[in-house]
């Protein structure tokens, strides 16, 4: 993955990870107050979440304490991150549109954005791939395999 830290100073990635895991455990434990833990002879719905949150907290603490050889958090290469965020936002918009404008239109729009804007492909191949994929996959899954997919305006 990444280089291990030697003499250099700074926040270790395992310290960050361990703290995040402890926070998740604390949050789960806090939210679990709403459910009865019960007794050992009759454990309630809050029993297992509490046990698991406790274990997670301990694991997080140990990971943070043993972080000495893990890479520096700043040294982790996040170079694909920006493209990844754009992709996730584009997918999020497509998901919002999915049940409003239907599968075919939302997937066409997503593909046009990904190919035309993110990958900077020429317009003709972009449109051909986008429309071709959206309509062919709809035909394959919805028409042939009878998978229910959302429709939009004009029956699309």
């Amino acid at each position, binding site marked *: 993955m990444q280089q291990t830290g030697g003499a250099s100073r700074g926040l270790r990635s395992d310290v960050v*990870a361990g703290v995040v895991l402890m926070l998740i455990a604390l949050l789960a434990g806090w939210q679990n107050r709403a459910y009865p833990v019960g007794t050992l002879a009759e454990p309630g719905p809050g029993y297992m979440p509490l046990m698991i949150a406790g274990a*997670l907290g301990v694991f997080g603490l140990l990971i943070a304490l043993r972080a000495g050889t893990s890479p520096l958090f700043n040294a982790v290469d996040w170079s694909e991150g920006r493209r*990844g965020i754009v992709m996730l936002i584009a997918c999020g918009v497509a*998901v919002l549109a999915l049940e409003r404008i239907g599968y075919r239109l939302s997937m066409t729009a*997503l593909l046009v954005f990904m*190919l035309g804007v993110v*990958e900077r492909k020429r317009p003709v191949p972009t449109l051909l791939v986008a429309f071709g994929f959206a309509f062919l996959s709809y035909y394959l899954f919805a028409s042939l395999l009878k998978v*229910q997919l959302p429709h939009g305006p004009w029956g699309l």
Partner: protein
Amino acid sequence: MDGGVFANLMHGFSVALQPSVLAYAFAGCVIGTLVGMLPGLGPLAGISLLLPATFGLNPIIAIVLLAGVYYGAMYGGSTTSILMRIPGEAASVMTCIDGYAMTQRGRAGPALAIAAIGSFVAGTLSVVALMFLAPTLASFALRFGPPEYTGLLLMGLFVLAYMSGGSMLKTLAMAAVGLLLGMIGIDAMSGYTRFSYDVIELADGIGIVPVAVGLFGLSEILLTAGQPTPPAIQRPTLRQLIPSLEEIKLSVGPISRGSLIGFLIGIIPGSAHIISSFVSYGIERRMSTHPERFGKGAIEGVAGPESANNSAATGAFVPMLALGIPTGPITAVMLAAIMVHGISPGPMLITQQPDLFWGFVASMYVGNVVLLILNLPLVGLFVYLLRIPYSYLYPAILCFCILGVYSVSNSVVDVWIMLGMGAFGYVLRKTGFEPAPIALGLILSPMLELSVRQSLAMSGGSYGIFFERPIAITMFAAAGVLILLGLKPLLFKRKDWREKVGLEDQV
């Protein structure tokens, strides 16, 4: 159904050789080969995509189709690994090392042939083992009560933590995250709805499909999209596929060992097919009289891991069919496919549904033959697919992920979960955490909770019940040994097993 194993198998063939079953087995193998070849679209995403389409089929056809996709992907994954150094799916990572080195030396054909032959031999041998072991295990499992199931599930988690090769603490932490996710939804024993925050869809719990497609499929796309275009692809002719006599001789041992190791690892809950290929590669390198050849195109480095991952894929069906316990996300989705049809998985499945079990076993023999044909003479045809630039391919895979996750329960919430898990998986992989235990924890969570609470209720609140029954205590003892083995390198500053088997400079 009475009768010996062979009489049952013949009955299975009478089911598997029905034209409709054969056609779906063939379709599953073709789709599996394709999804195995495409980076980001592994067997899980492929199976998830097809899951809704199986709801209208009979359960035998449904499971035959999905199993074809699973082991087809194991075969297909090797093609991209060998020709392009791109593992189509995670189990093929080890094949990349020597497979691609062989391609650079002009030996792509024999590498592909040995991978396909090894997969075929391992696949067939492991079906034989499955055929004998599953019914025996199922009758043994009738003695299992809640404490035994608790022991088995915890042992599975510790085996995964120990075998995964990375930090045991990190693996256990990820499994705990998965177990916590599994707590979301209605509690089966009390009817309380937990952690659903008034989102109706969350009351049913978080499904394995959105989590697994996000953690494995989407995070892979987030990591690989935008990387430089891979080099031109070789397309070996039929004649170039024939391995030399020496290559065949060198492959016999690794194929045999890989088959055995893969099957044994496969029956234990965990990401068996991935771990088995790592272990097999390490063992072959350690056993070789010329370990320096590894990484430079050693045929053993292709034969062992490819056999192991196929064998593990079949081994994973043993607990799934005999105990009703999924060993990973893929078998969990397959169990869901048969449960939709009102069939309860568990020890009684084999006796109550002989057509399903034996038809499925027989279909795997047929599937292995189909895959050998697809992956040797027709490999050139599949390679055409790899000529599609990745910049066109990954947006389409992204759409497939959305389509597959949405269509399982027609829920947009599931797609949001997938997107969240994709981002989470990306961050985890960047920071050295393995996402597979999350999926396993999520699957095992409801079973573990039920068995722990039932055990405690049975014993009137005494944890002693886990240490009074012979089967349960054996499993807890095995888990304890694994914890101690995992602690050993921490206490004595020893090398961990991955370093010992020589993987430290390869992965």
